[in-house]
């Protein structure tokens, strides 16, 4: 603080005088030091609005009996989210400051919202028309939500029922997903910037974003009509689901969002698959697997039957053993599915195994048949394949004997004498 030492000549009996500069500085320092005058909310009517070429906005805020000069610097004016107009009823937030050079007290405005139903609707309709004309509400812009989001962002107040409801529903429906909460102010003049910041933080690290707020008055929900926030939602890398206020409240953000949910709980359901349905799908796939492998095994049995005649006993025996091994492996694998299903399948597979045994030529020999083979072990299936002088082996259940073919039967009724 500047020294109050008097520079003009002092006279006895007369209080020492301040210079104007000193007085202005005292006032300024007093104003700046008073916490009531910073981050203050003031409601009034906009008048004498002027936009400077520099982008700064100057106006007077007034009511019936008083007025105060206001300055809105370009950076803040660009972030306002709606257009100020003369006659508009607004709530502004900012700091009171003193400008010694002009001897004026001013309100340096950081943010503003329309106040009252009339101002609210005027600003709302204007923003809505503007963004609709740009195509930001077009159905073609809406993106589908991911079926299996790995990360779900939630932009909302970190206290209160909304965040709790969303987390509770996601935990019940889809515990696989990681929920990332991006806390934001959800009402008041600072809310649009806070929401934009939270959305920007979270949108690049999640697969889908919920922007949510519980019910409130028109003024409470105003921040979701902010033009800048609406543009941020439209530009979000991740699809956005909005759930703002009650179902009857439709904000600009709702128009821009990829999906609008009636409530925060509904938004949580929209972004998440239902684990119960997923479990049913997984179990259905498990049952199908068992059913299909059973079909495959049946098909293999059919092919084994068809191949019977063409396989050597030894080869077929190996085939049977291989099939047994496959069946055993499939039993082991099946036992992981569902006990009842496995029991049923095991019984069917046991029967299949028995049938394969019956098909084995060794079983055929047990029943008293014999098999003619060439020296290399190939089965002789047709008399036509044998010529006079050929050496064959005849295989019985208890051993084999060597034979020579000494006569060949002619024509259709061939007969081989051993």
């Amino acid at each position: 603080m500047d020294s109050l030492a008097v520079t003009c000549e002092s006279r006895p009996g007369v209080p020492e005088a301040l210079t104007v500069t000193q007085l202005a500085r005292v006032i300024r320092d007093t104003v700046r030091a008073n916490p009531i005058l910073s981050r203050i909310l003031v409601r009034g009517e906009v008048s004498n609005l002027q936009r400077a070429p520099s982008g700064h906005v100057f106006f007077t805020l007034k009511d019936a009996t008083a007025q105060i000069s206001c300055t809105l610097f370009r950076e803040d004016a660009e972030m306002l989210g709606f257009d100020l107009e003369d006659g508009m009823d607004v709530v502004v937030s900012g700091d009171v400051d003193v400008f010694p050079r002009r001897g004026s007290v001013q309100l340096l405005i950081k943010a503003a919202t329309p106040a009252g139903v009339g101002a609210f609707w005027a600003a709302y309709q204007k923003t809505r028309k503007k963004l609709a004309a740009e195509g930001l509400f077009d159905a073609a812009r809406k993106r589908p939500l991911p079926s299996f989001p790995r990360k779900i962002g939630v932009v909302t107040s970190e206290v209160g029922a909304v965040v709790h409801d969303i987390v509770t529903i996601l935990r019940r429906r889809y515990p696989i997903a990681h929920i990332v909460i991006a806390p934001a102010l959800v009402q008041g003049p600072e809310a649009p910037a806070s929401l934009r910041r939270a959305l920007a933080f979270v949108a690049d690290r999640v697969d889908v974003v919920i922007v949510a707020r519980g019910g409130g008055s028109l003024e409470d929900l105003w921040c979701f009509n902010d033009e800048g926030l609406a543009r941020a939602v439209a530009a979000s890398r991740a699809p956005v689901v909005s759930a703002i206020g009650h179902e009857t409240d439709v904000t600009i953000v709702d128009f821009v969002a990829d999906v609008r949910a009636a409530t925060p709980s509904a938004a949580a359901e929209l972004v998440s698959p239902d684990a119960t349905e997923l479990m049913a799908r997984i179990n259905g796939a498990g049952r199908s697997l068992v059913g299909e492998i059973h079909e495959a095994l049946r098909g293999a049995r059919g092919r084994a039957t068809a191949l019977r005649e063409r396989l050597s006993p030894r080869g077929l025996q190996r085939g049977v053993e291989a099939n047994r091994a496959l069946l055993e492996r499939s039993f082991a694998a099946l036992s992981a599915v569902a006990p009842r299903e496995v029991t049923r399948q095991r019984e069917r597979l046991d029967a299949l195994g028995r049938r394969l045994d019956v098909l084995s030529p060794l079983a055929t020999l047990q029943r008293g048949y014999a098999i003619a083979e060439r020296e290399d072990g190939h089965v002789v299936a047709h008399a036509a394949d044998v010529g006079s002088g050929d050496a064959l082996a005849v295989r019985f259940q208890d051993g084999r004997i060597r034979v020579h073919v000494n006569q060949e039967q002619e024509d259709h009724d061939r007969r081989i004498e051993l």
Partner: protein
Amino acid sequence: MTEESNFEDSLAALEATVDALSRGDLPLDRALAVFEEGLGLYRRCHAILADSEQRVTKLIAAAEGLIEEPFPVE
């Protein structure tokens, strides 16, 4: 790679094994290999869904950049 990042792929692969088997044109040894693969995927999907514990974090702008800290959920 984390489990949650694999669920979607595992479920799609599981259903692909069912489709492959249901076409019915695989040789038996191949069919059994696909079956066993499907069974592994079935177990994996089941385990992910049944055992996942939800992570909830809060995003905070700190001096060193954006950080996530656990968000208390009762």
